[in-house]
């Protein structure tokens, strides 16, 4: 038997009701698995984490889909990141950030298994997909034994590796509004080796909407510089209502850097991360501006 990964029971529910039943019955020590790329590297006994007693496999519950509805796009939680990255739905100016983030996530081999829902539920401070979904105002559809509820992504992350989902709940779907023609978005990721697998030093997504030559709405999301990926609200307010001059963009970038609370770690120092926030936010805003046809 593998010394690497250990678990007492593997469950593959046939439908959601069975999945909720297993989650309710076993409670603590139960983990949901889809692609498994975040779960399998966990090694209870080798790494300092609690033992996993039960695994609930949700990869065969029909949760892998991309659908364009009349007023929104639905992404099934078990959709792989490569499926998302290959979809023409996210090559539009407004949703390009999502496609860019999918492409920047880990390696193609991992992305064949890693899922969109898994990337959100792992709730890593540097999760790539969270950022474009934050600036595109994604709403999550969660469900449990008591029924469905809708959670804005902004209130989903509660701390590093900790989300708003209850123990009996599953993330089913991610919903995105169809944006106006005047919206442009962009994602950028700084890592130590730009081609290779590595987590971000700093990652950033921005979205801008133009109306009558003014910035009607601005979104800036920052990753790897706080316990959770978050919207830099002060920096966003610098942009709203302006004509997005060079000076305004520089000011927003500086504001985002001042708002960030990065730490020192093996990838970079706090000071470097803060400087790079300003650079990455500026570059991403410039990309978004170009895409919103200005």
């Amino acid at each position, binding site marked *: *038997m593998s010394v690497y990964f250990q678990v007492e*029971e*593997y469950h593959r529910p046939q439908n959601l009701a069975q999945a909720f039943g297993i989650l309710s019955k076993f409670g603590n020590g139960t983990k949901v698995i889809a692609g498994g790329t975040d779960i*399998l*590297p966990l090694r209870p006994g080798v790494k300092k984490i609690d033992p996993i007693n039960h695994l609930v496999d949700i990869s065969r519950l029909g949760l892998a889909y991309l659908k364009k509805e009349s007023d929104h796009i639905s992404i099934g939680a078990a959709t792989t990141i490569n499926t998302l990255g290959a979809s023409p739905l996210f090559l539009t100016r407004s949703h390009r950030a999502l496609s860019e983030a999918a492409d920047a996530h880990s390696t193609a081999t991992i992305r064949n*298994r890693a899922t969109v829902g898994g990337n959100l539920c792992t709730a890593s401070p540097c999760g790539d997909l969270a950022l474009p979904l934050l600036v595109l105002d994604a709403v999550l559809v969660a469900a449990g034994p008591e029924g469905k509820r809708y959670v804005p992504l902004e209130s989903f992350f509660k701390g590093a590796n900790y989300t708003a989902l209850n123990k009996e709940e599953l993330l089913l779907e991610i919903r995105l509004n169809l944006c106006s023609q005047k919206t442009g978005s962009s994602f950028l990721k700084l890592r130590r080796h730009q081609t*290779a697998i590595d987590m971000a030093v700093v990652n950033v997504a921005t979205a801008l909407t133009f109306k009558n030559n003014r910035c009607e709405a601005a979104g800036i999301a920052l990753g790897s510089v706080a316990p959770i990926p978050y919207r830099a609200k002060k920096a966003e307010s610098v942009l709203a209502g302006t004509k997005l001059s060079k000076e305004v963009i520089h000011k927003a970038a500086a504001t985002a850097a001042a708002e960030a609370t990065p730490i020192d770690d093996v990838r970079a120092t706090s000071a470097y991360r803060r400087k790079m926030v300003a650079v990455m936010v500026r570059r991403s805003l410039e990309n978004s501006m170009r895409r919103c046809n200005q």
Partner: protein
Amino acid sequence: MTKVDIKIHVNGDWYELAVNPGERLIDVLRDRLDLSGTKEGCGEGECGACTVNLDGQAVLSCLILAAQADGCTILTIEGLQKGLELHPLQKAFVGESAVQCGFCTPGMIMTAKALLNNEAEPDENSIRKHLSNNLCRCTGYDRPVKAVLKAAQDIKEDSNA
């Protein structure tokens, strides 16, 4: 601990096995089926040495539970050759001297195999991007990239012949 009954199709044969819930696909391939061509490097998804094809896609066998592969078709490095005839990718890796220590080679070839399933004629950029999934500390990647280009060309010529 409850065993999980699975049925997997590996290199052309079906296997019915009762696996432990925590057993990974690589453990089944190497320890139960004696297919030790698939290598384990890091065991946590960084190095790509354990890459196999699952339903035609390149995946890391150290990051998949055997239980999750139930019903799937798996191709490993041992399944590439037909009889004594090596696969064009294997021939090209030999011909271009793209192998040094060889530990990353099975994974690299399986990554390339999945790439060629999707893109019959990948350009150098695409090959480099895909081979970046596989850590190699010997070759510097130039020869493996040439080998994949050569294999793609050979496969095209064979199909035209």
